[in-house]
Structure formats: C-alpha cells, structure tokens
C-alpha cells in the first residue's frame, strides 16, 4: 500500500534521513522505533507532505505521492497526526471534528464516523462545545486522532501519540489505538514507548541516526537483545 524507496531528507547540510526504505501493506500496523533525533518525524513528515525530501520516492496505492501537495495527500487517504498534534486550538472539539471530514470522500459518511469516534473517546462527546486549546494534553491528543479518523483515511500516520502524557493517559491512548487497529485500518506509528507499541504492531523498523538498522515482526523484536537494550531497557520481559 505504501512504499518508501531510498528516501533522504536534509535540513541544510544536516542529513536527517539517509536512504530509508520501508513498506506498509493493507491492514498492517507498522511501528518505527528510534531515539530522539533519529529522523522519525522527518519520515512521517515526508509521507504527509510537510517535509520535502532531497531524493527518493514514495508511492501510495501505486501512485507517486511526492507529486501531491500536502493537502492533496489527505484527499488521497493519508491522515497525519503530527508531533504537537496540529489541532485548531481556537475552535471547539466539534468544529475540529467537522474540519477533519473536510476531504470530499469523507463527507458522506461523516455522521457515522463521528458517532464511532465519540464511542472510541467518550470524553470528546462530553466536551463537544469546549474550545480545544483549553483541554488537557491527553484530551487534545484524542481530538487530534479523532479529527484524523474523520477524514476516513486508508492510512493513519501517528507521530508519538503518547508524548508528554501521564502513564494512565498513555494507557488510554494505546487502548484506543488497539480498537482502531481492530477496525482493520492501516497504521504507521512512530513511538518511543516501544513496549506498548510492539504489543500492538505487526511489524517494526528500527531507525537510528537517519538509517534503518533493523526490522522484523513485532513479536520477535520484543525479545531481540539489541532492541531490548536500546528501546525496552533492562532485562528481556518474561514471556510465556
């Protein structure tokens, strides 16, 4: 469904991504694990159209994605929840959700989609009239994810959805991601919370200093000594 082929991104002289290749198949949840500054946001930014790559290719459903400007990629079926969430802080929760359904293909099913999102995040239903910028970090993250789902995406890109949230809220967000995944939606997620992410994902790639240094099924990576050392910290978790 998504093919990233030898993609490089530079900021001036600084090379943030160096010949990165990866694929995501329909219905899969793929994770990208990497430390701070590894280039995770640059990768999602290039797919979402916020960052222009120096070279390399990205195809989505067989079509060249790099030819589309950022707003057209949402129409093509790619929804990005960026780092920092990118919601409309001055508008209400309801307005944020309505704007999510802005792509033409999303409008017809917007009401049903909205009902599903409110079932997923009941807290949003109680706060529909609240100005989004006055919500807690976790609630804003729910608005951001909900808004992305409103665009009826084929591929959901998530950039560190658990960043800066209290552990209990992180659990809540991951529980919601689990339910979104059950709907069969294709997801590409960037996370530092490797344990929770690997528990959900099908496959993962390891990104270090702009290069892919490993990849494999999430099940295997969870017990891979190198991954445990770099991302999970401490001993291999007990597996039954």
């Amino acid at each position, binding site marked *: 469904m998504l093919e990233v082929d030898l993609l490089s991104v530079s900021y001036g002289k600084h090379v943030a991504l160096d010949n990165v290749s990866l694929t995501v198949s329909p219905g899969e949840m793929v994770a990208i694990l990497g430390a701070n500054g590894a280039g995770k946001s640059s990768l999602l930014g290039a797919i979402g159209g916020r960052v222009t790559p120096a070279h390399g290719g990205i195809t989505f459903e067989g079509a060249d994605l790099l030819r589309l400007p950022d707003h057209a990629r949402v129409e093509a079926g790619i929804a990005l929840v960026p780092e920092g969430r990118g919601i409309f802080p001055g508008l209400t929760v309801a307005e944020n959700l309505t704007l999510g359904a802005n*792509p033409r293909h999303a409008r017809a099913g917007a009401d049903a989609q909205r009902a599903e999102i409110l079932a997923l995040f009941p807290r949003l239903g109680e706060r529909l009239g609240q100005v989004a910028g006055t919500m807690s970090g976790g609630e804003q993250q729910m608005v951001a994810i909900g808004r992305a789902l409103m665009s009826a995406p084929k591929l959901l890109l998530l950039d560190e959805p658990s960043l800066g949230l209290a552990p209990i809220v992180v659990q809540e967000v991951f529980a919601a991601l689990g339910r979104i995944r059950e709907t069969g939606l294709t997801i590409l997620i960037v996370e530092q919370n490797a344990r929770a992410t690997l528990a959900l994902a099908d496959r993962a790639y390891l990104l270090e200093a702009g290069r892919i240094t490993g990849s494999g099924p999430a099940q295997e990576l969870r017990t891979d000594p190198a991954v445990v050392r770099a991302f999970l910290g401490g001993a291999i978790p007990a597996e039954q």
Partner: protein
Amino acid sequence: MALTTLILGLVLGGTYALLALGLTLQYGIARIMNLAYGEFTLVAAFCLVALFQGAGIPPLWAMIAVAPAGYAVGWALYAVMMRPLVTRAGNSGRLEVDSILATFGLLFLIQGVLLVVFGANFTSISYLDQGVRVLGVSVAANKLIAFGICAVVGGGLVLALHFTRWGLTLRAVAQTPGSAPLVGIDVNRMARQGFALGTALAAVGGASVAMHQTFSATGGVVFTMKALVIVIMGGVGNIGGALVAGLALGLVETFVATAIDPGLTLAATFAIFLGVLLWRPQGLFGRG
C-alpha cells in the same frame, strides 16, 4: 435631533463596518495588509458614477455587477502581484512587510490613474435622494438603501462564517494556517479567496459610498485608515467586533459632526484609535 444623529450614524457606520470586514478578511486569511484597500473602494465608487452619468445605468443595477467585478479583480491581483510575494516569503514572516510595501506602491499607482481619469474634484451623484420618514426623522432614500445593502452583505457574511462549512474552513485558516493542510485545506486557495472576497467587499462599500457621499480621487487613504482603525478596535480577526466597531465609529463621527464641528470627525476617529491602542491594544472585544 438625537434620533437623527443615531440614524445617520448607523447609516455611515454600516458602510464603515462593511469596509472593515473586507480589510480584516484580507489580513486575517491572506495575511496581506492591503494599504491600497481604500483605492479599491474609490475605483468602485467612480465606476458607479461613470456608469450612472455616462450610460444612465442606475447605481442599484450597477451594484449587482460591482461585487463580482471586485472579486475578479482581487483574484487576479492576488495571482499576479501577491502570490510571488507569498511564495518568496515562505514561512519566514516576511510577507507582512513585503505586502505593506507592495500595496503602498499600488496605492499611488491607482490614485494616479484615478486622478488622470476622473480629476481631483469632489464627486457625487443625486440618486434617490428624496426623503423617507424613519421614526419621524427624514432620511434620504439612497442612505437607507446603502445601509440595507451593507446590512445584508455584512450580516450574510457573518452568518456564513459562523454557520457554514466554508466559513469554518476560513476561520480555521485564519486562526491556525499551519494545521489547515492536515485536514486537506489548500491554504493558498483559501488565501486567494479571502483576498478576492475582501476586494469585493471594498467594492460594495465603495458603491454604497458613491450612492450617498461626496468623495475624491485622493480620499482612499482615509477609507483605509478608518477600516484599519475599526479592525483594530474590534480586535484583529474578530468579525463581529469589526461590525460593532464600524457602527460605533459611524455614530461617533456623526455625533461629532453635528454636535461639535464637521471638521473634527477625522480627529475624533484618531483620538478613539489612540485611546484603543493605549488602553486596549487587543481591541474592545478582544480577549485578554
């Protein structure tokens, strides 16, 4: 007497409010501070007069053509003149300064052309100027029509901004342009629309000015300044605030002109402006 001031003040304020709406749309959505704004108002006013005196087309009919013509001119101007500035500025924030300089130049260009074509004399027409009694006060019919047009266009725009998907999209771009592409909004397209719509409002405002006021080719700056004062008084980006502040300014000017001296209206405008800048820089209706 008080009632006359009130009604005439509201009539004047209606035009001001409409002009301020257009300026705030251009600034809020296209991020272009258009110093030539008042010149577009004048161009429309002169066109209305020329059509009336030259071709006998009644201003009310001409008005129907003025709004779309203004939209088209704004659209073309954005594409030819503003778009290169937007592209060059990128995210650097240079657009504000560049657009001020560019439209400052445009101001003199349009003013020069107007002076050559229409001369420097004050212009006005007499059209539907028989009195109509409103609450016991006699008001010229043209003033009432001008007010009606401003109320319908301005009120319609406010309703559209708050109750339609299109309006929601415009507000989203005005408040958080960086997030707009995430929901598939083409920010450049919205900017062009906002600029064109603002020019259309300048044109409708100009047409209503032509129907009941005296104006000259060099008076555009005053319209721009008043619109700017109202935008700042209402709180930048606050559409409802601009409407109320516009009506308020019309009332104050009419009161000063009738109760004190007509020569002091501009001084009164700027006294209010200074007061707002000093004590409530966020605008009368701004938060914080």
